[in-house]
């Protein structure tokens, strides 16, 4: 187990370093690391490193790679929580309408062109986040009205109905305002383009706190996968724990996608792969989902900006194109030889 964890973390770090080194200008990993080291410690940069390279690494690639890592980690942890709490391997924040809520928020901001003065560049993220969280709260509120025990199927069905409805509204808005359709569609495909340190400063603390809360509930998550009744007979206050976990998970997805747009698939794939490698125990699933999901996202972003020269692919499409075959391979190869 210790070996597997070390290898996974090392692999993610290597990917992160390559995320800095590779791009339209190739900067050797050693130089990239020297630049980062220099910036952090204030030590002198070796003479052979060009000052443009320093700018590329420190102002563009490092914040971008770190942001991709944090977003990937957030989405994966959130996915792991949703799957376990709802006891459904296909559940994710999408199922509960977080993404469609955030899309609606983005659509409103883009179409109306509003900027809240106090929020400035964070107007879209904040409104996207608020509507994303609002959607899941609505889903939970409606399902608890329908069924006081918050049964999983009720939540999933309600979430999907609300999600489909809001998606229809978003489609309608895009269709009626053709001049904004391109920006909206791009937002819905997700991108780490043009992101600076400031985004990371806001997002990182949020995700870190949420991740700690989730990790705190690792045993409750274990027990919830046996169903609510069994969790209750072991002493879990299921209703309260479920509320907290669903909202924290939604907050993770909501805050992540409100900055970078909708990126799918990571939250579904990463936790499943982690469970195959590290077992189902959440004290491993949660941290390793973060590491693996983060590394995977950096890799996808790297692919998105380098595969086609001079053009950037939507990272959401890349995650699915790399993820789907990989997921199928892992899943079936493990199944044959248990």
């Amino acid at each position, binding site marked *: 187990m210790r070996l597997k964890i070390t290898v996974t973390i090392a692999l993610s770090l290597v990917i992160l370093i390559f995320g800095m080194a590779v791009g339209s200008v190739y900067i050797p990993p050693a130089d990239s690391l020297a630049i980062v080291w220099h910036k952090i410690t204030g030590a002198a940069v070796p003479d052979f490193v060009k000052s443009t390279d320093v700018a590329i690494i420190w102002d563009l690639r490092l914040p971008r790679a770190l942001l991709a890592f944090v977003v990937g980690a957030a989405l994966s942890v959130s996915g792991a929580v949703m799957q376990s709490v709802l006891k459904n391997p296909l559940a994710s924040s999408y199922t509960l309408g977080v993404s469609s809520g955030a899309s609606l928020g983005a659509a409103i901001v883009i179409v109306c062109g509003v900027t809240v003065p106090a929020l400035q560049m964070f107007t879209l993220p904040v409104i996207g986040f608020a509507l994303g969280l609002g959607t899941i709260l609505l889903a939970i509120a409606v399902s608890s009205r329908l069924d006081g025990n918050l049964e999983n199927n009720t939540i999933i069905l309600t979430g999907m109905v609300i999600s489909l409805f809001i998606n229809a509204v978003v489609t309608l808005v895009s269709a009626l305002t053709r001049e904004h359709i391109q920006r909206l569609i791009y937002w819905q495909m997700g991108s780490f383009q043009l992101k600076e340190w400031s985004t990371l400063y806001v997002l990182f603390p949020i995700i870190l706190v949420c991740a700690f809360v989730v990790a705190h509930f690792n*045993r409750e998550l*274990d027990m919830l996968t046996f169903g609510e009744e*069994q969790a*209750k007979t072991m002493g879990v206050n299921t209703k309260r724990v479920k509320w907290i976990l669903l909202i924290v998970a939604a907050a993770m997805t909501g805050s992540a996608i409100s900055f970078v747009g909708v990126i799918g698939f990571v939250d579904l794939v990463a936790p499943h792969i982690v469970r195959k490698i590290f077992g189902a125990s959440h004290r491993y699933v949660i941290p390793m989902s973060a590491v693996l999901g983060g590394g995977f996202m950096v890799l996808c972003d790297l692919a998105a900006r380098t595969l086609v020269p001079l053009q950037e692919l939507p990272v959401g499409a890349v995650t699915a194109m790399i993820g789907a075959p990989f997921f199928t391979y892992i899943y079936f190869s493990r199944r044959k030889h248990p």
Partner: protein
Amino acid sequence: MLKVENVSVGYGGAPVVRNISFNLDKNENLCIIGPNGCGKTTLLKAIAGILPYSGSVELDGKPLRRMKIREITKKIAMLSQISGVYFSYSVFDTVMMGRYLHMRGSFFGSASERDRDFVSECLRAVDLESVADRGISELSGGQLQRVFFARALAQEPDVILLDEPTNHLDIKYQIELIEYLKEWSRAGGHRAVGVLHDINLAMRLSENMLLMKDGITAAEGRAGEQIDSGMLRDVYGVDVVGFMKQSLRRWDGM
């Protein structure tokens, strides 16, 4: 004393279980028998605190209604009928979940030496030490049932409620489970309440019986005294005692 008084339970509509009462002293067991759908499982769930009920349940003088789910589950464990396994934990980790209430305190809830020892002890009790590191999805139904029983024991409860605990078990483990429970309650001042289909096993667990039909008590008391052949025939709609005797004659010839 576990004191159940006039308990009625339902799922929203008309109650499925009506006005059930019984008392259970320390060191004693009770088996609840009756035909399918008579409300046995529903009654157990109410006592375990999973389903809301009317009436009162008291444990050693304390009404359960005033206790938090945490306090209840420290005293009462329930072994449910086994359901599907969604994610595969190791056998050891699964039994460790029973220690949940005993290991609050550390932020990420790590297990102490005592917890680990206790889990090993529970695994020894159900004869599963050798598969402690295996994933539960690789186990047979009977092994899984024993894992869940070990998990209930790991809770260190005063009362265990068992819903069809012998399903999936082969005859050796059926007998062992019943004998274990008898010893467990006799030696430790514990109590077991079992819902059992197999009337032979039920009688082996305890002479105290609660016979249910259509959500109400049909008879209560000791087999052979308060509960007789006629009552069983009425409740099950078949001559139970006659069938058992017929079976016995067949075994006699072996």
